[in-house]
């Protein structure tokens, strides 16, 4: 069996080469980006000039067809029918590149087709229980004219565009055939089932506007309405957006921006924001999380559920009530607890019903970095996991991915030692120069969070020994030693790499694909420029996502 020393030179070289060449971080680690004040980025030429990465003609990158995710399916069904039964709850899990909507990775299996059929049947059955609410006429006297009107109105909402004459005629004929056999109610149900299993419902179909031979086209108004609604709401367009599409008022970047700003005020935007954050910050595993009962006897399902509520409330507050910046996400000194969670964290009971905002004193608090859910997920069942916590910061917040341990490397984690702290055990392990080359990039970040145990509780000692929360950032634009979570959060809050990484993560989620360093250089630069100009307010980044080449244009459909 090989051991650490076998690969020493290769691993260290690989690690440093890796960090220098890591994608998604721009050139923030060249040592020239010490200025992180936020006035523009390395990708821009200056305050007001054109973006260097953008050429004469738009460069939208790839635009793979997108299928509704389970999250989007449920939200869309709710908006269409007022049906909040979450019919997609049992759909197969899918995704890639960190997000559930990666259009390049997800594919339809026979299991999907069957789930889509079952969901459509269940939704249609509920929707046709009350035909009066569904149809634009008296259900006692449904005639073909009524159904034709309904297809015009409701069909447009289900397929997010007007039905063309052929489609309209086919659906009407389908209805008539079904009515002969099964009666009105069931025929309406079957029409709905058809529409809900159609590619025009399940996919976001785009052709762009006809153009004279260009490779790049603008989006049609209906297509743009759908792009906007799924980006910012994870659901279908509302009446206002449909009206704008009908009126041809989604043609310019300014019109799109105005809609985006309006849409961010709506409740659906909140749900979408949380859905993004639980994927980006990788905390979905808090649901149902269990811990080693011996190490954490008081940690149970109630605490895990409270920690989920805590982080959701925290993120919502930062984005919607506080200044919405990445810096606040990483440094805010407050959190949200109820009496039970406060007791678990050994904080004073806030009183009142439900979660209350509290600002703990005498301990580090650093935004999401010290959220219980984050710390409990990025931990082992029985203790902390400094490597996992450090790796989380590198991968999710800095978008730099250290290489894996080489094949056949004998990984020897430090044995349990009740007379030492976790940090002491890992430091000993890290003394091996073969491992430390890469682990210096991860472990010292995690050490800075050692004042929080494996279940998210503040602590000052471990095994009777004082916690040493000294850490160090390396291979970033904010390198250097720090002590504790608050200093780590403050350091990361000043990092251009972190802000760029947030842009990158939103690009991946917003556009359902991994960025291409070449084709998407312009859109990435546009995002970063606007994000900086908006003071790194995440709401401004969301608006910026609607203003890039990748969003306003698409490649023409090849013949």
């Amino acid at each position, binding site marked *: 069996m090989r051991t650490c020393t076998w690969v020493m030179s290769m691993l260290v070289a690989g690690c440093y080469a890796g960090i220098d060449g*890591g994608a998604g971080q721009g050139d923030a680690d060249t040592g020239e980006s010490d200025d992180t004040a936020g006035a523009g980025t390395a990708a821009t030429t200056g305050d007001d000039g054109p973006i260097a990465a953008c050429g004469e003609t738009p460069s939208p990158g790839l635009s793979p067809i997108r299928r509704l995710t389970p999250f989007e399916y449920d939200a869309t069904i709710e908006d269409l029918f007022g049906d909040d039964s979450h019919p997609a709850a049992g759909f197969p899990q899918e995704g890639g590149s960190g997000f559930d909507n990666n259009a390049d990775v997800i594919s339809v299996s026979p299991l999907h087709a069957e789930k889509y059929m079952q969901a459509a049947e269940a939704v249609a059955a509920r929707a046709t229980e009350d035909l009066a609410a569904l149809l634009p006429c008296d259900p006692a006297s449904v005639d073909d004219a009524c159904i034709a009107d309904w297809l015009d109105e409701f069909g447009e909402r289900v397929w997010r565009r007007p039905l063309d004459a052929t489609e309209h005629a086919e659906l009407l004929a389908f209805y008539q055939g079904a009515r002969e056999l099964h009666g009105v109610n069931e025929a309406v149900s079957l029409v709905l089932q058809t529409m809900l299993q159609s590619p025009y419902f399940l996919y976001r179909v785009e052709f762009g506007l006809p153009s004279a031979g260009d490779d790049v086209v603008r989006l049609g108004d209906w297509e743009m309405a759908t792009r906007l609604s799924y980006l910012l709401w994870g659901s279908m367009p509302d009446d206002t957006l449909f009206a704008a599409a009908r009126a041809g008022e989604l043609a310019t970047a300014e019109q799109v921006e105005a809609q985006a700003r309006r849409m961010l005020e709506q409740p659906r935007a909140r749900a979408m924001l949380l859905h993004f954050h639980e994927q980006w910050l990788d905390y979905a595993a808090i649901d149902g999380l269990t811990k080693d009962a011996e190490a954490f006897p008081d940690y149970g399902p109630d605490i895990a559920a409270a920690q989920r509520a805590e982080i959701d409330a925290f993120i919502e507050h930062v984005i919607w009530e506080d200044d919405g910046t990445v810096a606040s996400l990483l440094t805010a000194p407050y959190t949200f607890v109820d009496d039970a969670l406060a007791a678990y964290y050994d904080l004073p009971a806030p009183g009142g019903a439900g979660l209350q905002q509290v600002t703990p004193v005498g301990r580090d608090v650093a935004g999401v970095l010290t959220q219980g859910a984050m710390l409990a997920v990025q931990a082992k069942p029985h203790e902390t996991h400094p490597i996992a916590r450090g790796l989380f910061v590198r991968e999710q917040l800095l978008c730099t991915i250290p290489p894996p*341990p080489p094949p056949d490397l004998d990984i020897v984690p430090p044995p349990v030692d009740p007379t030492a702290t976790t940090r002491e055990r890992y430091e000993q392990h890290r003394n091996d120069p073969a491992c430390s080359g890469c682990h210096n990039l991860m472990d010292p970040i995690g050490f800075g969070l050692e004042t929080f145990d494996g279940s998210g509780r503040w602590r000052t000692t471990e095994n009777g020994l004082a916690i040493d929360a000294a850490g160090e950032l390396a291979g970033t634009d904010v390198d250097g030693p720090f002590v504790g979570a608050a200093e780590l959060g403050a350091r990361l809050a000043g990092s251009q790499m972190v802000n760029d990484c947030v842009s990158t993560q939103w690009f991946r989620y917003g556009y359902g694909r991994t960025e291409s360093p070449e084709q998407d250089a312009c859109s990435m630069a546009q995002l970063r420029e606007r994000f900086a100009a908006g003071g790194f307010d995440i709401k401004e980044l969301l608006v910026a996502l609607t203003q890039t080449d990748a969003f306003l244009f698409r490649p023409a459909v090849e013949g």
Partner: protein
Amino acid sequence: MRRPISRRTLLRGAGGVAIALPMLEAMLPRSSHAGGTADFPRRFVVFFSANGTIHERWNPMGSANDFTFVDPANPEQLRILAPLEPHKADLVVLQNLAQQSRSHGPGGNGHDMGMGHMLTANTLVEGPSGYAEFSHLPDGSVAGPSIDQAIAEVISGTTPYRSLEFGVRANLDLARQLTSRMCYRGPFEVLPPENDPQAAFDRLFADLDADPAEIATLRAKRKSVLDRVGEDFLRLEAKLGASDRQKLESHLDAIRELEQSLSNDHGLLDGCAMPTVPGKLDYDANDNYPLVGQAHMDLMVMALACDLTRVTSLQWSTAQSGTRFTWLGHGSDHHGMSHEADNDEVIREQLVAINHWYAEQFAALITAMKQVVEGDGTLLDHSVVMWCNEQGNGDTHSAQEIPYVLAGSAGGAIETGRWIDAQGRAHNDLYVSLLRAFGADVDTFGLAEVCTGPMPEL
């Protein structure tokens, strides 16, 4: 507790509805007019558990044809395969296969690689972004189909389902999707498992006693809807660019399979019985892991016995499994422990116990398959059940010394009761042998350049 379905035949409504009709002369169970075993279909089952094994406690003792899983000198010692001792005559214990394909193609992370190569025996492929981060292929996939799908192509016939995938907390890791999926039709065509036993039951066996006339109507309605939907797909496909068209085509294929399963009436085999209703169960709860597995295995056996499918798989968790074996008294998680076994005797024993527990589950599966009588033999006799792992050693993520156990002879095509040291041979060769056992005329599977031909021992 299974309820026999006597004098009935199964008529699927599909998608949650399968019904029993009073037996008609035309729908006599096939076995009623077949005395031997020749008429029974051949089946293939995959059983996956993660994170490698502890070899010196897994290896049999004795010789190739006369071996034991219990150490005669130390009978008290917990040995991993001991639960399979009563089944030795039906097994092929395969030691020392290697995922040689892992030395080829993109990817670096041992869990990504191990899981992606395990059933495909092929390289990974990068995603369209060309953005293969050091460790993972964030939008990548596998280069070819998994062995279960290749075998399904040969043996599935006109069964309602070409294959059925079951998972026990086989949850997707969004950032490392390759670590959490194992069955593929081809690149970017993943077959996700069903984790919910009740949903699987509803899909396969519900409404067994529904009114035949109602089911016939339901089938007709579904067919009319799917036909209409299919026309939308065809018309749209024609207008799309190549890669989008491919996605829609694959979706339409899935719909066509669903339609086919609506149309296929088939006779019941003698062993077909109503499985236990799993009931609503928090199937994602760590501590329900054994219960969920048991429920799935019950459904799998009956899906095979009723000939709803001939190929099925059970994915216990994922590569990098975070399962906590609390029912064995363990506090830590499987993956974490797999990296601590080399210098911690207690954890090493716990890993032996975990793998021993999986051997008990494997034994329970083949016991259940033996209880299904088919002609002169049993369901197991007509099957091959393959227990596989994505690593040789969980600590080093080793592609060497991968442990495999086969049960069943595929109707006599494979000589069982043997222990084979594959001496580092590519696992591709095992899959070639299996494909041949199931009647395919092939010389390679997966990455051709590492294939050396079928295993002579098989």
